Each structure stands twice: as structure tokens, then as C-alpha cells.
């Protein structure tokens, strides 16, 4: 039999109906729902008198709008309405909901894996582009729009053309202080924000194999920033170990049977991809974005570029515009950019290992004068664990604000907004104009780099810092 990629295997397992000249009708195993992209879909169902086909394959939470202090007091009336609309809709259509009172609440892409809902081989969708996160488990997971949310609610399927396959292979060893975030930022920086358009990415190679599930999630999360709707990693022992014992994962003998099925999903030796990119891990350094898309980045020991460094006129114009927006001058060393805000959080980097990495840097130090620093755990469970491990106290003692879970300043739909003209070292995924607030100047970095920026008030090369173990 012809060797297959995991992408082809999952796809073929989910084709409900196939006909020439049409996309495939694909079955969806898990539909995650949040408050922002679902109300119009539920309204559509009501207008046509339609039902949710499989509430048991649907799971909802609220994350985008929720305040991270006094979470039950939502002062913004429009946001409050949207949250109560989700509560109403879940009640009406019998959809399980992790609401603000639930210990399971959190960012949808953090709680899916945490609860064991995310499993290898599943097709997973959500009205959110960072659904690609779940690909870390060897699931085919992608973001959809509200019309598609409605379609999945009503039919548990989607009409989809099979995308092309892109292998990104990262071999070698990562240097000290270089993290999963730096790897994905480096990939996007080198190959551009649309290298993955029309493709599903499979991340392979020694570096990925050696990564924890949380690191793989960081990588897959930002596949969409490379233009790919989905990015995934073939499952292995690391995947199975993570899932064992999770609330919604199979139990006992069922789990062992599932592991056998999951193991068979991994890409076969000799399978072919439509495109392959190879990266040597040793060439990757801690990264900082200087511009207004995630490809506009350089290593921490680099400088802000000149527009003339870029070949096309369109790029030069974009760089000029970005530098003006960011208030940066060409040739400025990255380590001389002052930082007034630090945000550690988001579906990219708000898991327990992210907080541990940041805490290592922060322990025993103080946030620099004039810097406001936030830690927003990805879920209430992460929050609880971080408190039990003493991480929360390390952050609080250093002068960080310690918050409840939610999307928070990644996109500023709740009150956590970065003021105009101020620079923010952020562990989130998008540095678009206005993303964190109108005129806010976002620099995407790893949790360790963000923590270091909080302590020093400017970017520093974490490779040069003396790290102190937390435990």
C-alpha cells in the first residue's frame, strides 16, 4: 500500500460522501464553541427551526470577552449580552458549557486538550482561527467562520476540498533559551505569513519529537499565522502519556485500544508531501517581532531593519508603514526597545509550562519601574495548578498582576487593553495594528523573553541571563 501522511489518513476516515466536481462532505468529531462567533449561528438555527444534530460532540466555553478581574462583573453591556446569549443558546440546544462558574473554564484551545476532548485522529473545528492548536495531538483541527459553525451545528459535517500537504521538518538541537515560540516565529519570519495558504502543515523532525505536548501546541497554534488553516504533529508516546487519565479521554482498556488506533495514524515512512521545508534548529535564536505582522521579526541580538533591506515595493511600503506605527527607527538594536507592558497569556503561551518558564526568570526579582505586567493563565485549572506550585506567588512578589483565565490582552475584547503608543512584550500570536488596543505596539516573544522584558524594562537576550530553578 502506498505510504500515507497522517493528514490523508484522517481525511479518508472522515469522508461521509464523495462525488466528482464537489468538495468532500467531511464528518466533524468535535465542535468547540465560544461566545463571539456563535450567536449568529444559533440565531440562524432558530430562524429555520433547526436543531443541533450532535450536542454530545459539541462543547462550549466563554473566553474572549471575560474580565480577568472580578469576572462576574461585566461592565460592558454588549459583552455581557454576548455571554448571556451563549448561556441561553447552550441551555436551549443542550450543549455542555464550561461557564464562568466552572473550574473547567478557560481559553477554548487550552481546555480542549486539558479535558482530553482533543484526541488524535479527530476532526475538530471551532469558530476561531487558532483551532489549529489541537493539531498538536495529531488531530485535523481548523478554524471556521460563523456560517460554517451553523452548518456544523445543524449537520455535524462540512464540505471541504482536500488541502495540499506541507511538511516542515526541524532537525538538530535547539540552543539554550530557544523555545517553541521562537521556532514558529522563525519559520514565519523566514517563509512568510502566507507560506501555508492552501496547505495543512505537518511539523516533523527531531526537535518536534523532543517537544512536550504544550510546546507542540504553541507551534501548531501559530500555523494560521503562516497561512495554514491547520498544522499538526503525528501522535507518539508523549501524546498518549499526556492524554492518559484526562476527563474525557477513554478509560482503562478502552484507552489501550485507542492508543493502538492512534499509533497507526502517524505518517508512514516514505509518505510524500506536496511541499517540504527543512530547518536546522541550531540556526534559531530567541525571536522578537518589530513590525505589524508575525513575519516581521528578528532575533533578539538583531536590529530593526531598513525598508530598503526588502526587495519588492509592496514589502518596502509595508515595512515603512509598520515602523511608523511601531515608532521604531531602522538600525535600533532590539534590546534597546523600551517596554511599558508585558502580557503573559493567550492560547499560544498560557499553559503551566509557559508559566514555569516565565517564573524561572522572574523569581526573586522585581518588575522594572514603569512597566505594567500581567499574567493571565489559559484556564482556571492552569491557574489553580500555578498557585499550588508557588508560581503565582513568584509573579505577585515580583509585581505582576495575577489574573483569572481568558483571552484577555491578546485581542483586548475585555478590559485588558494596551494604551496607544506603548510597547508590549506579549506571548500572544498577533502583532497586527490595533490588535491589543488602538495604536498599541505589540512585540511577540516567548514567555521567558516576556518575563525578562518585564524585569529589565526592555528586551534582553534570555540566553545571557542566569536562570534560577523554581523548585
Amino acid at each position: 500500500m502506498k505510504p500515507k501522511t497522517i493528514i490523508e489518513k484522517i481525511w479518508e476516515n472522515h469522508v461521509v460522501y464523495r462525488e466528482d466536481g464537489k468538495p468532500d462532505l467531511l464528518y466533524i468529531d468535535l465542535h468547540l464553541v465560544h461566545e463571539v462567533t456563535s450567536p449568529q449561528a444559533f440565531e440562524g438555527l432558530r430562524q429555520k427551526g433547526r436543531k443541533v444534530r450532535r450536542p454530545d460532540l459539541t462543547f462550549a466555553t466563554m473566553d474572549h470577552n471575560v474580565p480577568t478581574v472580578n469576572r462576574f462583573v461585566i461592565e460592558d453591556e454588549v459583552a455581557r449580552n454576548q455571554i448571556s446569549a451563549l448561556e441561553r443558546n447552550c441551555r436551549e440546544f443542550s450543549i455542555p458549557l464550561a461557564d464562568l462558574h466552572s473550574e473547567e473554564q478557560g481559553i477554548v484551545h487550552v481546555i480542549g486538550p486539558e479535558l482530553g476532548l482533543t484526541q488524535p485522529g479527530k476532526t475538530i473545528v471551532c469558530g476561531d482561527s487558532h483551532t489549529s492548536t489541537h493539531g498538536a495531538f495529531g488531530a485535523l483541527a481548523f478554524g471556521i467562520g460563523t456560517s460554517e459553525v451553523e452548518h456544523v451545528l445543524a449537520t455535524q459535517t462540512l464540505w471541504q476540498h482536500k488541502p495540499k500537504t506541507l511538511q516542515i521538518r526541524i532537525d538538530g538541537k535547539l540552543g539554550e533559551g530557544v523555545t517553541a515560540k521562537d521556532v514558529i516565529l522563525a519559520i514565519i519570519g523566514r517563509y512568510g505569513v502566507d507560506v501555508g495558504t492552501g496547505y495543512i502543515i505537518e511539523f516533523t523532525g527531531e526537535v518536534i519529537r523532543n517537544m512536550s505536548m504544550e510546546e507542540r501546541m504553541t507551534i501548531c497554534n501559530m500555523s494560521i499565522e503562516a497561512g495554514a488553516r491547520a498544522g499538526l504533529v503525528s501522535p507518539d508516546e508523549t501524546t498518549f502519556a499526556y492524554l492518559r487519565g484526562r476527563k474525557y479521554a477513554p478509560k482503562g482498556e478502552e484507552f489501550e485500544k485507542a492508543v493502538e488506533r492512534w499509533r497507526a495514524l502517524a505518517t508512514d515512512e516514505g509518505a510524500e508531501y506536496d511541499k517540504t521545508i527543512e530547518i536546522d534548529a541550531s540556526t534559531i535564536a530567541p525571536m522578537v517581532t518589530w513590525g505589524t505582522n508575525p513575519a516581521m521579526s528578528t532575533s533578539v541580538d538583531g536590529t530593526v531593519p531598513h525598508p530598503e533591506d526588502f526587495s519588492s515595493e509592496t514589502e518596502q511600503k509595508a515595512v515603512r508603514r509598520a515602523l511608523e506605527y511601531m515608532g521604531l527607527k531602522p538600525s535600533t538594536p532590539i534590546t534597546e526597545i523600551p517596554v511599558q507592558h508585558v502580557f503573559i497569556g493567550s492560547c499560544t503561551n498560557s499553559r503551566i509550562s509557559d508559566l514555569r518558564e516565565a517564573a524561572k526568570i522572574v523569581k526573586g526579582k522585581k518588575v522594572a519601574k514603569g512597566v505594567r505586567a500581567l499574567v493571565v493563565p489559559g484556564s482556571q485549572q492552569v491557574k489553580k495548578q500555578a498557585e499550588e506550585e508557588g508560581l503565582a506567588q513568584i509573579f505577585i512578589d515580583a509585581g505582576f498582576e495575577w489574573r483569572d483565565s481568558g483571552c484577555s490582552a491578546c485581542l483586548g475584547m475585555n478590559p485588558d487593553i494596551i494604551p496607544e503608543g506603548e510597547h508590549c512584550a506579549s506571548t500572544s500570536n498577533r502583532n497586527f495594528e490595533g490588535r491589543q488596543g488602538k495604536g498599541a505596539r505589540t512585540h511577540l516573544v516567548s514567555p521567558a523573553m516576556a518575563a525578562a522584558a518585564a524585569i529589565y524594562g526592555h528586551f534582553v537576550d534570555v540566553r545571557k541571563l542566569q536562570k534560577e530553578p523554581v523548585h
Partner: protein
Amino acid sequence: MKPFTVHKGKVAGIDRANIDTDQIIPKQFLKRIERTGFGKFLFYDWRYIDGEKPNPDFELNRPENEGATILVANENFGCGSSREHAPWALQDYGFQAIIAPSFADIFYNNCLKNGLLPIRLAKQDVEYLLRESTKADYELTISLEDQRVYDDNGFERTFDIDPYRKQLLLKGWDEIDLTFVYEPYIAEYEKKHCPLP
């Protein structure tokens, strides 16, 4: 969905690449639970100074672009967030088609679901249209049936579109109704792979 067949209209250009959906419709407007009324917030941060005064430098505020129904922009239009509020805002503002050398995948899909036609043309054709769009009375005609874009000066190009999506657009069909036709296949699949608990 309103059918899309032939459209003739005025062209506005924004010569930027990687226009993300955060620019098309900023997050503070995503809290509404309706599908309508997003047009006044389209390109909000670029379009207004301090949230009220129109920014005279922004392309859509130029007098020659008033009443435009076709938008031309550069590569990777609609990247970033999956928010369908982006096509809703473009459509509510009055746009019926977007032309660019490339689109982000999720945005492209979202447009098709709403009868807003995304058209991919070669980079040099887009450059030509961006130049022409600065003229006050420049118009294009788009025929979906024969997949053609043309102006009155002899410019004429064909474009690709998936035949299934094309049919849906031409007819203005509700995709969910159409999928219900395949319900027996879905039920069969579920019986085998995904039974009810």
C-alpha cells in the same frame, strides 16, 4: 444568500498586502450578536481619526471612491482571525466583490458563504486595477457565469472558482438545506463511526 450573477460597479483600491481581519473589523465591534450593521465600523481604525472624524488619507474616504462596490487590494487579503464579521462588514458597507492576488483561506470561504465574491487575479492585473481605481469613474463588470472581469477600455481577464461554490453563488442556495439531502449518508457514517451515546 443573495445570488451573485453579474455585477457592474465602481472600483476602490487599497494598495496594501496582508490586510488582516483585525483591520477590516476591529475587535470592539465583535460583541454584537446580529449579522447586520457592521458596515459603519469597516476599517474603523484606518477610516476615522479619534473614532469620529473621517481620515482624509484613507483610500475609502477619497471622494473618487464614494459608492464603490468592488474592492481591489494586494496579497493575502483577509489574513488572521476567522471572524465572519469581516465579510459582513465589507458587504454591509456596499462591496459585492473583492479582487486580490491571493486571499487567506478562512476569509475566502467566509466570503463565499455570504455571496461576497472573492476573485484572484495575477499580481500585474491587480497592479493595473489599483492604478485605474484612482480614477473617479472607473468601473468593472464581473460575470460569475463565465468567470470574467472586464472594463470599458479593453481589460478582460478570466478567474478561477470552485464549480460547486459557483453554483451555490449563482443560485443563492442555502448550503445547509442542500446538505440535508445527504442526511442518510451522515446517519450511515454515524452508525459506523460515531454512534449516539
